[in-house]
């Protein structure tokens, strides 16, 4: 759905696409792109829905965030709960028994283990059946496996994705939208059968999906891959790997070029997740980095930096909020403006634009998500309890980031998080405490953060006289799809669109791949504009593949 107008004096073709909605899941995202000579030259990502959770939380019970913030996103609701409770733990200076940290870790990991196959089959892989690829070798096989509802792997992948959250429900009562993590611990007091059932369910999921369907081999063998070259060699190692969904995907993705676009800035953020039970028994903002199992960090222009929440800003220059400030979330403000008015001020999105201030370097947009986490996992200096994994640092420095690399970083976590969750289940001491009642301090400030499936997710809470004075949430989707800032620097996803080749302007599936490789929790809409005149030419269109 595009019109081609040859208006450039140089004879370059400028294409105008208007395609919508592009992605899938919470709220709507419009993406405008300008295309020239079959390549995207600029992009603007526009979050099109506003609910005002931060406004609702003002003046409420300090624990209201445990109920309200999971409802920001039902896909990452457990992650919202996890970071919201740590914001309160740090504000109230609680003590956490080791079991509480373990149960929180297990639950958080299980939400992500659910998300990995569900995202891959229900949201991402269906684009591989797009008719644009009909002439690619392996297309029939892609359709056989990944066609929505009827694909041989689709149904298995989507249905088995519900298994890890059965484990979540054993501890939290249900998934999505439990609020079972509270300052001082967790609400549950698991029994022996709860733990044995959890182990059986997780191992079933590992056997039936992760090893049989996805890897075509063992988790242990997959985890021996330490470089991108290792991954490619793994595919050809035996028929099991080669014909697995993973092996097939890597081969088919290369054939259709998913390894050649969607790079983005190559700058990454992980706030880290999962805590060492002994080291985070008394959660503090300052003590957070050292207690993490999956580390935090920032990777910019090839250099690693430590993450410090004090360096986060949210810029609203181009966001539908009053002003053009870039405030730290403790001072953050959420004052919406009518888009009809905001547009006249150059604003174009309900997402704020999160930026990270690197001392001595400056303010940067950073990509969040599995690739960011796995690049940070390659940071030197891991302590004995922390994850060190060089695989994706190698990938981004040898073959460079792309849609394929971003997808594989996510899928890699299935094996890693399964191993972690199984280990934590073994460490639960059922005869010890799961909760230590805290003192509900009337005043305080807290910071909680985690890695949702799709990236760094953080809360900043200010409590005054027993109620919420200010509450700010910075989501991975805001990090990734946020708009330009005061210096007109693109957001990460805007940048990742730039350079994407569009083979068939009537069905620009490449844009869909880029957007969905970020797994933004928004239904995306793409409009494309005449690069010269800015005039929008094409009409509304719904659809996958753009």
């Amino acid at each position: 759905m595009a019109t081609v107008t040859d208006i450039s004096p140089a004879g370059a073709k400028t294409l105008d696409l208007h395609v919508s909605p592009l992605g899938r899941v919470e709220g709507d995202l419009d993406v405008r792109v300008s295309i020239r000579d079959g390549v995207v030259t600029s992009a603007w990502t526009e979050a099109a829905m506003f609910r005002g959770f931060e406004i609702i939380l003002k003046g409420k019970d300090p624990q209201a965030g445990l109920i309200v913030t999971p409802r920001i996103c039902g896909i990452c609701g457990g992650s919202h709960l996890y970071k919201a409770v740590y914001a309160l733990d740090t504000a109230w200076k609680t003590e956490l028994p080791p079991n509480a940290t373990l149960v929180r870790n297990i639950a958080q990991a299980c939400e992500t283990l659910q998300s990995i196959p569900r995202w891959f089959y229900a949201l991402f892989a269906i684009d591989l059946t797009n008719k644009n690829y009909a002439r690619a070798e392996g297309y029939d096989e892609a359709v056989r496996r990944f066609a929505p509802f009827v694909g041989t792997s689709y149904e298995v992948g989507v249905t088995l994705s519900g298994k890890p959250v059965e484990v979540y429900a054993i501890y939290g009562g249900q998934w999505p939208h439990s609020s079972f993590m509270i300052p001082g611990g967790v609400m549950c007091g698991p029994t022996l059968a709860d733990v044995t059932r959890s182990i059986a369910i997780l191992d079933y999921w590992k056997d039936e999906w992760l090893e049989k369907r996805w890897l075509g081999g063992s988790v242990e063998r997959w985890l021996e891959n330490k470089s991108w070259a290792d991954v490619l060699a793994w595919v050809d190692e035996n028929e099991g790997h080669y014909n697995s969904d993973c092996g097939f995907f890597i081969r088919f993705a290369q054939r259709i070029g998913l390894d050649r676009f969607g790079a983005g800035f190559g700058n990454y953020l992980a706030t880290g997740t999962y805590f060492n039970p002994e080291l985070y028994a008394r959660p503090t903002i300052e003590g957070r980095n050292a207690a993490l199992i999956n580390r935090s960090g920032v990777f910019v222009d090839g250099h690693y930096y430590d993450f410090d929440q004090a360096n986060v800003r949210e810029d609203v220059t181009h966001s539908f909020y009053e002003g053009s400030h870039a405030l730290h979330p403790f001072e953050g403000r959420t004052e919406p403006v009518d888009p009809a008015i905001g547009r006249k001020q150059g604003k174009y999105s309900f997402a704020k634009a999160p930026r990270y201030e690197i001392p001595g370097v400056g303010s940067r947009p950073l990509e969040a998500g599995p690739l960011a986490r796995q690049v940070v996992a390659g940071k030197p200096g891991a302590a004995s309890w922390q994850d060190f994994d060089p695989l994706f640092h190698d990938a981004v420095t040898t073959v460079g980031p792309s849609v394929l690399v971003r997808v594989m970083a996510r899928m890699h976590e299935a094996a890693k998080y399964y191993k972690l969750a199984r280990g934590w289940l073994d460490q639960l001491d059922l005869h010890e405490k799961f909760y230590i009642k805290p003192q509900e301090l009337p005043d305080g400030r807290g910071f909680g953060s985690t890695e949702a499936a799709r990236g760094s997710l953080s809360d900043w809470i200010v409590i005054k006289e027993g109620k919420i004075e200010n509450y700010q949430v910075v989501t991975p989707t805001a990090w990734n799809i946020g708009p330009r800032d005061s210096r007109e620097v693109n957001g990460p996803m805007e940048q990742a669109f730039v350079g994407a080749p569009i083979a068939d302007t009537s069905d620009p599936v490449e844009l869909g791949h880029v957007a969905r490789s970020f797994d933004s929790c928004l239904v995306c809409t793409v409009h494309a504009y005449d690069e010269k005149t800015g005039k929008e030419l094409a009409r509304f269109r719904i659809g996958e593949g753009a």
Partner: protein
Amino acid sequence: MATLLWFQGGACSGNTMSFLNAEEPSACDLVTDFGIDILWHPSLGMELGEAAQRLFYECARGERPLDIFVFEGTVIQGPGGSGRYDMFADRPMKDWVLELANQASIVVAIGDCACWGGIPAVAPNPSDSTGLQYLRKARGGFLGADWRSKAGLPVINIPGCPAHPDWVTQILVAVASGRTADIALDDLQRPQTFFKSFTQTGCTRVQFFEYKQSTMEFGQGTRTGCLFYEFGCRGPMTHSPCNRILWNRQSSKTRAGMPCTGCTEPEFPFFDLAPGTVFKTQKISGTIPREVPTGTDPLSYMALAAAARVAAPKWSKEDMFVV
């Protein structure tokens, strides 16, 4: 074959995620075994591209039969009644909702947001959100109290935050298999087959409730007792089958030690999350629960409670859900 269109307004997608946890039938079974033709859903791939656009307009104009319109999320009316806080396909989502609801045989609201406005409608309701036919407890909502679908039915409310997948899939199967007439609704337009019973019906803590034995602490403390007395559990006042049809095939919040927050009722979140109300039973004079189980009165209940405590056996004061 029944056609179904699923839209999301001010939504978190939690109901879609819950729906994807379904097993009997699974989301795939609905399509392959029960002939539900999902014309479009915001996060699942089906009819796409220009065909889907055409389909939207055809449904909205009544040119293509739409049997079931499912709506998830609030109808966002702000700012100033313009609906510009939720744009979809270049129009306020509310305009799509009105046109599609009027053309559908049956309209199903899934989750609290679509039923009553849910969390986004909590004061000060910054987006001016409402449910399809209710705003919290007040009938009316976006479509109006007297609105009826083409089949002559009001909006079928399947509340919950989120709704359990079975509540959704079983109603869809009932519609697709010609049992629409069997869907009896209660006075909040909820299917009685699910919402006549209480959340407490089937709760594993009900014997502690019988003898008025309280859980005294979260965590290890939830191995005994009932959560109604101290932790604000709304199980005796909330209508849902959470302890008849378990969550994720495993458990429920109250079984796992989390107080019911009453999320299938229009007042959720109760007390608008005012300071001191979260996970705490509201009491009169510091001892008597301000709210007693549905249908009883405080005096009768206190008499029953006093007698029950006298009758309480020794085991009711000990841990039951042990290692």
